[in-house]
């Protein structure tokens, strides 16, 4: 029996903001296999972002179990979590989070600067960066500064940055939220391509249309999973097609 890439059992997350307790996630259980494309959907405040942050080791659950590759994440130190984020996980954010006044190349290089595995590198950093940029069709903008790019281009660079360490899992938090529909389509197309190439993708969105590009939709409401369905009529992003 193969172990799921990630598995959560009865997960809770409570925020304590100066005495006021807010339960963002309350008793969530599910698992994601390698190669899946899962959309976590729900209205704002539903707890979907919190869930993603826990899954991405940016935050820890208050209660419950989270197994990553079969290992209980409770035992992971901060440094180990950081290394996992570096090597196994890529993040794509709604606001891109590129470093300003820094070139595209250097932005994509960033995760490599925190890569501690120096010995046994099979490819040079430059090759890795170029390959990542190539897969999002941004190699021609390599020496541009990040602030010279359009929104869609910025997000593609952000995807390249997430890709550069060849992670097993990519989290995309509202990746099309700040983009026009044409650029959004392009981003979804890239994500679908990456999934086809074997990357597991977890997409967080509040738009049904965007979510339908995934293979499976987890609907989160009030910190609980309201439904967990396979997408029957999956949308395939094509150039020229517009996102709603």
């Amino acid at each position, binding site marked *: 029996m193969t172990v799921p890439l990630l598995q959560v059992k009865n997960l809770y997350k409570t925020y304590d903001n100066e005495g006021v307790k807010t339960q963002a996630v309350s008793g969530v259980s599910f698992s994601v296999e390698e190669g899946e494309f899962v959309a976590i959907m729900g209205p704002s405040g539903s707890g979907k972002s919190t869930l993603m942050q826990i899954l991405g080791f940016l935050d820890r659950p208050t209660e419950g179990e989270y197994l990553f590759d079969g290992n209980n994440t409770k035992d992971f130190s*901060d440094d180990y979590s950081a290394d996992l984020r570096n090597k196994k996980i890529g993040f794509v*954010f709604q606001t891109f989070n590129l470093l300003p006044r*820094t070139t595209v190349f250097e932005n994509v290089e960033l995760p490599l600067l925190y890569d501690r595995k120096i010995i046994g590198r099979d490819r040079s950093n430059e090759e890795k960066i170029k390959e990542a940029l190539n897969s999002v069709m941004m190699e021609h903008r390599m020496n541009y500064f990040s602030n010279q790019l359009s929104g869609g281009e910025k997000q593609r660079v952000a995807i390249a940055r*997430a890709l550069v360490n060849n992670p097993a899992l990519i989290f995309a938090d509202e990746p099309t939220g700040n983009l026009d529909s044409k650029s959004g389509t392009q981003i979804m197309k890239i994500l679908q391509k990456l999934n086809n190439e074997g990357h597991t993708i977890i997409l967080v969105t509040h738009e049904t249309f965007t979510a339908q590009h995934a293979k499976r939709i987890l609907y989160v409401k009030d910190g609980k999973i309201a439904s967990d369905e396979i997408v029957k009529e999956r949308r395939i992003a094509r150039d020229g097609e517009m996102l709603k």
Partner: protein
Amino acid sequence: MQILNPIKISYKNLVAAKFRSFLTILGIIIGVASVIIIMAVGLSAQELILDQIRGIGSNLIGVLPGASSDDGPPAAALGISITTLTYDDLQAMKDGKNIPEVEDVAGYVMGTGKVKYEEEDLSFSFTGTTASYINVENAEIETGRFLNEEEEINLSRVAVLGSAVAEEIFGTENPLNKKIKIDDNNFTVIGVLKNRSSAAFGTSSQNDTIYVPLRTAQNLLLGINHLGFARLKVRSSDLIGVAIENTKITLRDQHDIDDPADDDFSVRDQAAAVETISNVTDVLRYFLLSIGTISLIVGGVGIMNVMLIAVNQRIREVGLRKAIGARNLDIAWQFLVESATISFLGGMIGIIIGVLFSFVISEIVQALGYTWPFLISFWSVIVAAAVSIIIGIIFGMYPARKASQVSPMEALRYE
């Protein structure tokens, strides 16, 4: 993570925010520059004083007429004329039986006179002194010769000119054997002294003074019988204490004084005066140094302040770096290296400015005719560089720690 990466990251951030970086390091620049200048000026001032001591001779004893308390200046120094020191006293002090430690003794009377050469009327100060002056004061002759003992006894009308006097009266003309008039008395110029480039303690006036035989000045120019003061050259500086005591005994004997409280003269050691002055400059130096230190600390606080602002401004960046795999220590290092780099950079600029400033100061002072060597101590530069790095590290620690403990998800959510 490679060792160079934090430096690489910091460098990028510094270049990306040039103006902010410059403002941050301004305090450090000023602090380091002032420390360098203070140390350099202090060193040069000390060298100047040492030069003075060498110029006067550290083994001189001054004898002034009139009593003095140890803490106050002698009356003669305040311009009060006291007539108790005489030519006989000078002879007694010269006598090796009385003060065996003394090598030579010079007597002085001083005045100002109208000097006339051809049709030119000028006013100069003159000193009536003994032939021993040149030995006692370590003076040097440029041309001609100094006064001799025969001229002293014969009341000869001869004069030796200070270098500035010679230039003012004669210009490029050769002054030797020329006749000048001092207060309508004819004098023949027999020599010119070498220019002496040191200041203070009476030696600066050497260039501006006309020297005539002691008794000529007393009788002909001033109409007095007493001495202004006398200087004794002791054989070696460690004999000064004994020499002072023997001088006092000799003078008491000369003046029929039994009780030292009735002394009508004062004997002083010039090296002690010089020491007092260098103590004063030391105090001044430490005072300035502490000001420099304070400005360094203020500069450090400035760095801390700016780093704290930077942590807040770049909180999203911190969140992102953590999300893509930076450990807490990586973030702390990044900010620490950044503040140390800023501070070190400030230190370097400060050192350059400080050295330049010290150089300019030395050039100006030298142009004014003083011996003021351009001295930068190697250690002051090393210490300034090290201190600037240390300040960057110390004052960068708190902001770095703060940055490293930022929660990545809160940082990413921060607007």
